[in-house]
């Protein structure tokens, strides 16, 4: 097991957003964390990347304790978080948005190598390098956010709602490229999604969160086949 979460609890004042959650993800796996709005998915992800503080519990990625580090330190340990809603800086150019992901490595050569690789993966970004990020379409922004994250050569990728606000056709493309990229690069992924069906289709395993606690977990195909999951989360 590589990502191990044990009895994790996160409180916002009096509200328990994440309640005694335990699960683990094997190295190289793509795990989908699904559940209704307000189930605590985003809070959980923000806690794993150091943006929110946990109240109790443990969370480790390999040897790294995820609960006592700042996000900028976790990036240096291979943990990268793409936050909700196209995590790009609108005022910066496409190229600058990519470059900030590799600044911490202080290595110009590695930076340009990573950049070349990402532009190969997302040629659309290459055509728009010098444009401000706010001139991009929703799908292109999501590609840019992913690209920025890949610039830091992550081993664990925390993805928050990459499908948010995108057209159905674009969602499918984004999901497919997430699957292909992370499998080729051997990146472990924890994917938080409202679009449960789309996420489970590309995932190896699934975890269903309800009111801050794990309701069901299992292989993605078993969740898709489960009548209870289908009725509650997949809409049919």
């Amino acid at each position, binding site marked *: 097991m590589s990502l191990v979460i044990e009895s994790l609890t996160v409180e916002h004042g009096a509200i328990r957003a994440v309640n005694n959650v335990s699960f683990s993800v094997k190295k190289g796996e793509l795990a989908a964390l699904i559940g209704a709005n307000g189930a605590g998915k985003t809070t959980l992800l923000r806690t794993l990347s150091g943006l929110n503080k946990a109240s109790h519990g443990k969370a480790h990625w390999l040897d790294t304790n995820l609960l006592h580090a700042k996000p900028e330190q976790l990036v*240096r340990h291979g943990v990268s978080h793409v936050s909700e809603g196209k*995590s790009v*800086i609108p*005022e*910066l150019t496409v190229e600058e948005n990519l*470059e*900030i*992901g590799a600044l*911490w490595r202080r290595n110009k050569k590695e930076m340009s190598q990573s950049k070349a690789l990402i532009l190969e993966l997302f040629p659309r970004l290459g055509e728009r390098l010098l444009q401000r990020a*706010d001139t991009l379409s929703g799908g292109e922004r999501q590609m840019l956010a992913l690209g920025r994250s890949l610039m830091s050569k992550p081993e664990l990728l925390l993805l928050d709602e990459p499908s948010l606000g995108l057209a159905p056709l674009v969602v499918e493309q984004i999901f497919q490229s997430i699957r292909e990229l992370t499998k080729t690069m051997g990146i472990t992924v924890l994917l938080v999604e409202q679009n449960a069906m789309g996420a489970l289709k590309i995932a190896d395993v699934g975890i269903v969160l309800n009111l801050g606690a794990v309701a069901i977990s299992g292989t993605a195909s078993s969740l898709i086949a489960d009548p209870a999951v289908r009725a509650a989360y997949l809409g049919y």
Partner: protein
Amino acid sequence: MFQLLNTVLIGITAGSIYSLMAIAMVLVWRSTRVVNFAQAGMALLSTYFGYEIIHMSGSYWLALPIAMLAGAAVAATIELIFMRLLLKHSSQGAIASIAPIIATLGLLGLIKSIIGYFWGNQDVTIDSPFSNVGFTLGSHTLALSPMKLFILLAVVFLTLVLSLIFQKTNLGLALRASAYSPEISRLAGIKVDLVRTFGWSLAGAAGGAAGMLQTANGNGTLSPDSLEFSLLLAFGFIAAVIGGLDSLIGAVLGALLLGLVLAFVLTYVGGSLVFITAFVLLLVVLLIRPGGIISQKAGRRA
């Protein structure tokens, strides 16, 4: 004709010094979203360090960079041990918007008192490294002296260096990213806290340069209650707001505009109206273009 030329020259020279101060305000605003009224005190303290160096070595040329370094060190210290704690403890509720402003006003008083304690309250004097006597053109004396020419060149040089840092270096990219979106910057691996301290120290250096140049441009005297530094703060702040508070180019343009307008009022209307004009200009800009003279559709981001 010569009067017109001289008015423009006075306006540009004054504006160029205001622009350093405005740049300092913008740098601090961009890194921590604080309007730093202590900037005048920090600039004054840096200039006192410069005065000490001149006193010991006799060289303005040594004193100028050392005053800038001292300004950077003072600003970094204030950000590290004071502002960081303050912003952490007053990050929520009504106090969040007012506490930093009150705190910087308090700091301004504190720094002035410290200066008074160590250097006394009477004037000390810095000699100009260049003549303050204007160049002559035929029978006319221009309002451009070797000292003023040096000030113009120094400000252009410093502004260019600063723009290069911001636009062409990784450090500049980190500064801009952290200003626009601290959270995404953190997730990308940028040490935003460190970057903020650096933003403050750049501001401190710009303020130190403004103080040294302003003192050598004026009558050369320094005191804890220096009127010149109070004006520098007021006009630097107004220039920064006119420029949108978020933009370096805006700060420079705002300062030049302010310098020119004030020079024309001084020459053609009367000295007693200079203050009123500065504040009327501020109000007009705030009413017509609250985002500053070069604001874009996106406007400011909190």
